[in-house]
C-alpha cells in the first residue's frame, strides 16, 4: 500500500507540476536498488549579459536572468529498472527592463535500464520530454512607451526524446568514482520551426571525504546535429552548443538527508558557445535518499 501511495504521489507530481530537463543533472551507469528512492529539491539562479549568437559572436545585451525551483526524483522500480522524473516546478525568466515570464517547465521522464552490472555498470536511458509548459509566455518591457513584449517561455514547445548510455566505475578502496555518458536528442518542431537534433556527452569524477562529503566535477559537451540553423531564439535552444564544467558537493546532514550545491559554467573548445547566455549557474538543494 505504501509503495502504491508513493508511486501515485510521484506520478501526480510528475504529471501535474511539469518540468524541463536540467542538462547539469548527472548521468551514471548505476541504477537504484529495487524500492530505493532519491528525491531532490533545488533552487538555481543565473544572470548574464553575455549572449553568444548563432554564429558564435559574443554580444552584450541587457541582463537576462532566470530563477528555477527544480524537483528531481529516482525510484528503483525493478532491480535493473529505475524511473526518474525531472520537473522544474517554477521558472521565472526576465530581462532587467522587463517583468518576469513565469511558469512551470517541460516534464522529462526517464527510464533507466541496467545493461551491465558489476565493476563497470552500463545503463541505457530513454527520456521523453513533453511540452507541458506554455510554449509562448511574454514578458512586458517596463520602460517602453509602447506595448513592447518579448517571448520568454519556460519550455521549448516541442516533444523530444533523449537516448543515452552511461557507464561508471568505483575504485574500491579509494572512495573515488568516475562516470561517462553520451546521448542523442531526437527533436521535433514548434509551430513551423523544425529543430535540429542534439548530442551531449560528459565525464564526471567524484570523491568522498570521511563518508560525509562528496565532491564532484563534470566536463560536458553539447552540440547541434546537422547544418547550423541561421535563425532561432535562444530560449528554444535550436542551434545551441557549448562545453560546460561544474563543481558540486553533497554533504550528509543525516543518514537520509543531504545538502547539495553546484556551480556550472560554460566555455568554448570542441563546441563553440552558440545561441546561449553564458554565466555561472548556482544551484543549492536538499536531497533525501531511501536505500
Amino acid at each position, binding site marked *: 500500500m505504501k509503495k502504491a501511495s508513493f508511486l501515485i504521489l510521484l506520478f501526480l507530481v510528475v504529471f501535474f507540476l511539469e518540468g524541463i530537463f536540467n542538462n547539469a543533472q548527472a548521468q551514471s551507469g548505476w541504477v537504484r536498488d529495487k524500492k530505493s528512492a532519491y528525491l531532490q529539491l533545488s533552487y538555481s539562479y543565473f544572470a548574464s549579459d553575455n549572449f553568444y549568437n548563432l554564429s558564435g559572436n559574443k554580444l552584450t545585451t541587457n541582463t537576462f536572468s532566470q530563477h528555477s525551483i527544480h524537483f528531481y526524483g529516482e525510484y528503483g522500480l525493478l532491480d535493473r529498472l529505475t524511473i526518474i522524473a525531472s520537473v522544474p516546478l517554477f521558472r521565472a525568466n526576465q*530581462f532587467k*527592463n522587463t517583468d518576469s515570464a513565469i511558469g512551470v517547465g517541460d516534464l522529462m521522464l526517464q527510464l533507466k535500464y541496467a545493461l551491465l552490472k558489476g565493476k563497470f555498470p552500463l545503463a541505457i536511458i530513454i527520456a521523453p520530454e513533453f511540452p507541458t509548459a506554455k510554449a509562448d509566455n511574454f514578458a512586458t518591457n517596463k520602460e517602453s512607451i509602447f*506595448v513592447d513584449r*518579448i517571448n520568454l517561455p519556460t519550455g521549448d514547445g516541442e516533444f523530444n526524446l533523449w537516448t543515452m548510455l552511461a557507464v561508471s566505475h568505483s575504485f574500491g578502496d579509494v572512495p573515488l568514482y568516475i562516470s561517462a555518458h553520451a546521448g542523442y536528442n531526437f527533436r521535433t518542431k514548434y509551430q513551423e520551426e523544425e529543430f535540429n537534433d542534439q548530442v551531449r556527452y560528459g565525464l564526471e569524477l567524484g570523491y568522498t571525504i570521511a563518508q560525509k562529503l562528496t565532491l564532484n566535477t563534470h566536463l560536458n559537451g553539447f552540440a547541434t546535429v546537422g547544418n547550423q540553423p*541561421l*535563425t532561432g531564439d535562444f530560449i528554444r535552444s535550436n542551434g545551441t552548443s557549448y562545453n560546460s564544467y561544474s563543481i558540486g558537493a553533497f554533504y550528509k546532514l543525516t543518514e537520509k538527508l543531504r545538502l547539495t550545491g553546484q556551480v556550472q559554467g560554460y566555455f568554448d573548445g570542441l563546441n563553440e558557445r552558440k545561441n546561449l547566455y553564458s554565466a555561472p549557474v548556482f544551484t543549492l538543494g536538499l536531497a533525501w535518499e531511501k536505500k
Partner: protein
Amino acid sequence: MKKLMFLSISILFLFAFTACNDDDTEVIVDSSLPQGTFTSAKSGTFAAQNDTPTAGMAQLGTDSEGVNFLRFTPTFTTALATGTVTVYFSKSATLMFNPGNGNPNIRIVGTVTQNGERFFKLNTAVPADFTHVILWCASAGIPFGNAPLN
C-alpha cells in the same frame, strides 16, 4: 401576443432588407494608412543584424494628401517570434541613446509585431539628418537590423 409577433416580424424584415441594401455601404477611412497614392522619396534595404532574418525595404514618403509615412515593403521580415521590435529613425546606422540630452540622435517611430507591409503615419517630416531606420529589440537591447534612407 399578436402585437409581439407583428413586432418580431417587423424587426426581422428590417434586418433582412437593411443587410441587403447596397446603397448603405459604409466607407471606413483608416487615417493611419496613406490616402491615395504613396510616393517614396527615400528608401533603403534592411541589413540583418545579430542572426535575425531581417529583410525587405524601408521607404520614407508622402501620400496624396501630403501626409508623411514610413513604409515597410511587403517583403519585410525580422525576428518576431521573440515578440515586439521597436522602430527608430537614427542619425547613424548605430542607435546612439543619449537620454541625458533628450536623445537628439534618434526618434522613436513605433513597434512592429508582424512581418509584411506596414505603414507608420508620421506627424511631421523627418529631418534629412536622420539617415537610417533601425529595428531594435528593446528588451534585449540589441539591433535586429537597419536600413539607410537614400
